[in-house]
């Protein structure tokens, strides 16, 4: 009964385009008023304080700041040029550079909008110069841009870890192998498509070995960020928050090295950071509050019992959950989707005997899929916006093989959970 009310009210609030945080928070108030005589909502002050003084979550603004600084440093252009020199000999040419540089760049940047927009602006002039199929080219950027939330550091994984009380370092480590594999899968797809239908691909400037080796120096800074951020976590030297702080300092140094560090850069990077932090935190305050109300009123338990009573096998339940995410991803912005569903889905998954770290990675793959499936697939619109001409239909058509790759990756993970768990 209570969860039917919950669902109805929530859908109504969201369809009315209420600010997502307010929708969740107000739902919490409504549920307490209707279904309880106890004033659970009075815990709100404590909830907001505990969430906003959560040491692990401090990594979020730091990683965003790190990404913002790197965008301003102009490192994306350098990475793209270097990747072009190394990969353009493959059938598909620049398309491989799109995937590889998005993967590298996105890994250090917190925003998939920023990644897709930045990579798009850099690469589209090249696309036109060499006469690539624009739809396929744009699709490769949209798909590549999603890799960043799987390859650590990932803000989505921090949010998952926070909402499920799962170890964030372990989640980061679990994301590495599937993230790299997915990037390779994307490149295999480009390779195959371009061998079957060479007209979609094209050439690029051929680089000599000497040019390639010189280009390596442009990759040094971004690999330094990688090593500091991931290395410090992997060796146990630093917590994710500490690694993020170290990363911010390295990114500041890189920005200074490229002579881009000035007052304007600092202000712009901070503005971007604060804006995204506020967006994430309002949702997390409300999600945590709503989750507290759910647990106090027994909603979470009821849903878990309901799923149990259905008597589905774990595999079938997992399949149903994955289908639910695919459908939700079509309508709802991804962070809101995570905050809304994880507190309820996580207990079900654990109850079925699945590993929460492993499911975190599956969840992120589903989010990546949501980012490139119409009608709400944000990355599609961003790349189309940067492309600036033609119809978005071209991109939607060519994104299909990339969506297939993500589906394949999810199936591989279900079949071989070790892919995620091997490094943890």
């Amino acid at each position: 009964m209570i969860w039917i009310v919950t669902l109805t009210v929530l859908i109504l609030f969201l369809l009315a385009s209420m600010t997502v945080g307010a929708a969740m928070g107000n739902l919490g108030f409504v549920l307490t008023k209707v279904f309880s005589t106890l004033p659970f909502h009075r815990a709100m002050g404590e909830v907001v304080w505990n969430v906003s003084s959560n040491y692990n979550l401090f990594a979020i603004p730091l990683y965003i700041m790190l990404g913002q600084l790197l965008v301003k440093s102009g490192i994306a252009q350098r990475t793209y040029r270097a990747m072009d020199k190394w990969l353009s000999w493959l059938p598909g040419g620049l398309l491989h550079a799109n995937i590889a540089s998005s993967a590298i760049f996105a890994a250090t940047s917190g925003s998939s909008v920023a990644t897709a927009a930045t990579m798009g602006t850099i690469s589209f002039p090249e696309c036109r110069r060499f006469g690539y199929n624009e739809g396929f080219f744009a699709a490769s950027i949209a798909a590549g841009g999603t890799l960043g939330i799987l390859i650590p550091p990932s803000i989505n994984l921090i949010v998952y870890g926070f909402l499920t009380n799962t170890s964030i370092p372990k989640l980061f480590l679990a994301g590495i192998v599937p993230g790299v594999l997915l990037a390779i899968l994307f490149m295999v797809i480009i390779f195959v498509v371009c061998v079957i239908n060479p007209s979609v691909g094209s050439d690029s400037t051929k680089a000599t070995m000497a040019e390639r080796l010189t280009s390596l120096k442009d990759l040094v800074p971004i690999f330094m960020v990688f090593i500091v951020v991931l290395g410090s976590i992997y060796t146990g030297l630093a917590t994710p928050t500490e690694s993020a702080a170290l990363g911010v300092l390295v990114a500041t140094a890189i920005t200074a090295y490229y002579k881009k560090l000035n007052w304007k850069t600092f202000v712009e990077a901070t503005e971007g950071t604060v804006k995204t932090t506020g967006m994430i935190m309002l949702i997390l305050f409300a999600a945590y509050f709503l989750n507290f109300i759910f647990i106090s009123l027994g909603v979470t338990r009821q849903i878990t019992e309901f799923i149990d009573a259905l008597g589905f096998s774990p595999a079938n339940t997992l399949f149903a959950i994955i289908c639910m995410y695919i459908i939700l991803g079509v309508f709802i912005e991804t962070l809101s989707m995570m905050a809304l569903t994880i507190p309820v889905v996580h207990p079900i998954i654990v109850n079925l005997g699945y590993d929460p770290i492993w499911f975190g990675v599956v969840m992120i793959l589903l989010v990546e899929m949501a980012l490139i499936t119409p009608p709400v697939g944000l990355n599609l619109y961003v790349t189309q916006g940067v492309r600036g001409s033609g119809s978005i239909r071209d991109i939607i058509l060519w994104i299909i093989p990339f969506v297939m790759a993500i589906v394949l990756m999810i199936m591989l993970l279900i079949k071989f959970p070790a892919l995620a768990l091997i490094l943890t």
Partner: protein
Amino acid sequence: MMGIIKSLEKVSHWSVIVCGFLLMGMSLFIALEVVLRKFFSVSTKGADELSAYTFAIICAWSLSYTLIKKGHIRIDFLYTKLSFGLQRLLDVTSFLALAAFVSPMTYYTFKTLKTSIVRLSRANTPLQTPMWIPQGLWFLGILFFFIVVIVFTVVILKMAWQRQFQEMADFAGCPVLDEEIKEESGIDIKKIQGQGGDNK
């Protein structure tokens, strides 16, 4: 009314700059802690705790800036399919709902602060921080967010009353993609489209 909004934006802008310095300063402090721990096996015994307080202050003050920049997420799946008039109606209800959520949030966060002041609570850590200091700065951020929400709601209601629907759309509508890309990456789509449209 617009004068008040201008001053709120100014306060918010300066709070963002302070947040930037807090982030950079805290990064340096954390780095110092990591180096000391690794190479000298000593700890500053406070980096974690101070990080948490810094974060709380940044969180609270970021909320208002995000609102001013239209950064708080609204699901626009149905919204974009509605008529101009219905969209304005949803803008009003959306702000009323935000006010309905933020008002009790401000009240209960004040209660939390008040409890810390009345009981003279101190953190259970080596620093023994009196809790009212970080919680006070944190609460001020939330209070400021509350003020911005209320002022914005009043402005929107006033605009609706005076039937200034275009102004309302600019002020409170869901952001369109061009704006969003520009905000996130500093790339101006309209400019690119002007250059690249017939470049095929």
